[in-house]
């Protein structure tokens, strides 16, 4: 059977042409190719071989004596036949070429033996691997917490150990720079709460008590929560990316070889800065949230003095401190998780991205879990 193959449509300007003749002698397939075995024709030649190979020959011979041109793509036909015959355990030979063309094909065939697919991992082994990964994570987490605690105690005893300039710089980047976005979200959340609760409460004649709802929910709960979520998105991811990039570029190794502990040098300033600024941001968010509530209730006939008086009556010192404590705990979690994700960054160009994602997702999950636990704790204390 002879098949003439012209240039494939992806190369309209090409004038290449290849003729493929396949014959079966006994149970051995002979493939004779003449003309140009190049990028423009190789697709069609490849397709033309599918049917003869599908008939299960017991050996293949590739005859290339009539070849006019061959390029680095054309040799893919030899690679295909080589891999086919190897996978079937049948003989393969090439004839009719020498010199550079033979060298080209010989080079292309190096290491082309099909690699058997790895056996599927047994479920027990998969579970074991997953368990080991979890154990490594837990061990890293415990080691990190221990290291941070020890170094924090050392810093308390000898404040000179702290890099104050880095701490102040981190406070500016992760505190001051976050003021506008925290304000915007606080304002809108306060307004939304007032907007959504006004109508149902007005039915019971409790329009003024919407102020209580806004005040309590924002100051105790949503102020710290919104601030922490913004913190996870802005700062947790930034910590993971900064420290992760330093790990990939061996800057962490450089610190260690100088005898400088990366936790003291990089982690403590970031965590301290975050723990100091987050409660302040949370207060700022709460103020704006309460103000946002008034923007909805004001037009409903509630005066500013009435609103402020009602909010002040609804809030307690305990509730306010509860909000501050939550914000500090959230900050500790988000910054710790971000820094740990950075320190655990793997190798390769995608590793920093993986760490950043992990920092944000784990940070937000940790915030919500901690909020639930703290909420129950403060409730039990009667605060």
């Amino acid at each position, binding site marked *: 059977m002879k098949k003439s193959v012209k240039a*494939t*449509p*992806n*190369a309209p300007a090409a004038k290449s042409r290849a003729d493929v003749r396949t014959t079966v002698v006994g149970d051995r397939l002979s493939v004779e190719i003449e003309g140009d075995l*190049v*990028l423009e024709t*190789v*697709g069609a030649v*490849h*397709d033309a071989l599918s049917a003869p190979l599908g008939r299960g020959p017991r050996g293949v011979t590739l005859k290339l004596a009539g070849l006019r041109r061959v*390029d*680095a*793509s054309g*040799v*893919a*036909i*030899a*690679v*295909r036949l080589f*891999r086919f015959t190897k996978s079937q355990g049948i003989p393969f030979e090439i004839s009719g070429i020498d010199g*550079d*063309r033979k*060298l*080209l094909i010989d*080079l*292309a*065939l*190096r*290491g*082309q*033996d099909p*690699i058997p697919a790895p056996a599927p991992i047994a479920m027990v082994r998969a579970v074991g691997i997953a368990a080991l990964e979890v154990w490594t994570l837990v061990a890293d987490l415990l080691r990190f917490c221990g290291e941070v605690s020890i170094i924090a105690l050392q810093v308390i005893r000898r404040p000179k150990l702290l890099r104050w300039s880095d701490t102040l710089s981190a406070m500016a980047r992760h505190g001051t720079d976050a003021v506008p976005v925290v304000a915007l979200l606080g304002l809108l959340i306060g307004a939304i709460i007032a907007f959504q609760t006004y109508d149902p409460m007005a039915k019971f004649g409790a329009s003024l008590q919407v102020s209580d709802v806004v005040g309590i929910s924002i100051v105790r709960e949503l102020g710290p929560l919104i601030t922490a979520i913004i913190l996870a998105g802005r700062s947790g991811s930034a910590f993971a990316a900064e420290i992760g990039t330093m790990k990939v570029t061996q800057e962490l190794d450089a610190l260690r070889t100088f005898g400088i502990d990366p936790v003291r040098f990089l982690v403590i300033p970031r965590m301290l800065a975050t723990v100091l600024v987050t409660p302040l941001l949370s207060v700022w968010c709460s103020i704006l949230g309460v103000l946002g509530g008034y923007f909805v209730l004001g037009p409903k006939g509630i005066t500013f003095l009435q609103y402020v008086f009602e909010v002040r009556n609804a809030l307690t010192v305990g509730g306010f401190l509860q909000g501050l404590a939550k914000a500090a705990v959230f900050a500790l979690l988000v910054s710790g998780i971000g820094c740990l994700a950075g320190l655990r960054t793997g*190798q*390769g*160009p*995608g590793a920093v991205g993986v760490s950043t994602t992990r920092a944000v997702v784990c940070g937000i999950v940790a915030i919500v879990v901690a909020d639930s636990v703290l909420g129950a704790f403060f409730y039990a204390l009667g605060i």
Partner: protein
Amino acid sequence: MPSSDTIHPTPPSDRKVAIALRGVSIGYGSRAIIEGIDLDIFEGEILFIGGGSGCGKTTLLSSLNTLRPPLTGSIVIDGIEIAGAAEDTLQSVRRRFGMMYQLGALFGGMTLLENVRLPLAEFTTLSPAAMDDLARSKLGLVGLAAHADKKPSEISGGMQKRAAIARALALDPPIIFLDEPSAGLDPVTSADLDALIVALNHMLGTTFVVISHELASIFSIGHRFAMLDGVRKRLVALGSPTQLRDSSDDVWVRRFLTRTPTGDS
């Protein structure tokens, strides 16, 4: 692949011009780094471009590969003027060359096979099976067929550079640009890479434009050497590497090619 001791630079027999530069100035903003480059790069030659650090080698390469237009002058690749050309013209020119970046620039999320397959999937209508075989054959040419299913992070720096050459070869371009192919490689890997360049140049007639400081490579496989000088802001030498080393009138060129410190006369 020929062993490194069998490599002898063969001057190109066909003198057709693949890339022509006329009065080219390159730089950033309005600041020129190199001015007035006149240079013909011939089909099938291996041209090395060298010079001191920061002299504009990589900037020149960025202009040759169409990513950074020259400040002034004309660059013609395969008969097409690229200085000031429209984006679709540049796209068609980009199909005529392959590029290997200094660090390989392989896509980290893909296997080597997928890296080489990507240009085929984007620019041809081949079947998936044919694309796989083509990608495997290109990886075979650079000795990486057995590593086709690994990711770049799982192989060495030298292997990454070879994989990047395989990717540059994906569409069988007549011209390949290499940016510092030997940087950071051990001498044996570097010699293997040289052998690969010569083999591809011999077998496929591919034109290679190589940015490199590697004197061993320049002398063993370079047909010609072009030297840029960032202080004088011009192309100061062009010719056979050995002739330039032995008989160039320019002291700086001789120093460069003989690795002589500036303190020595």
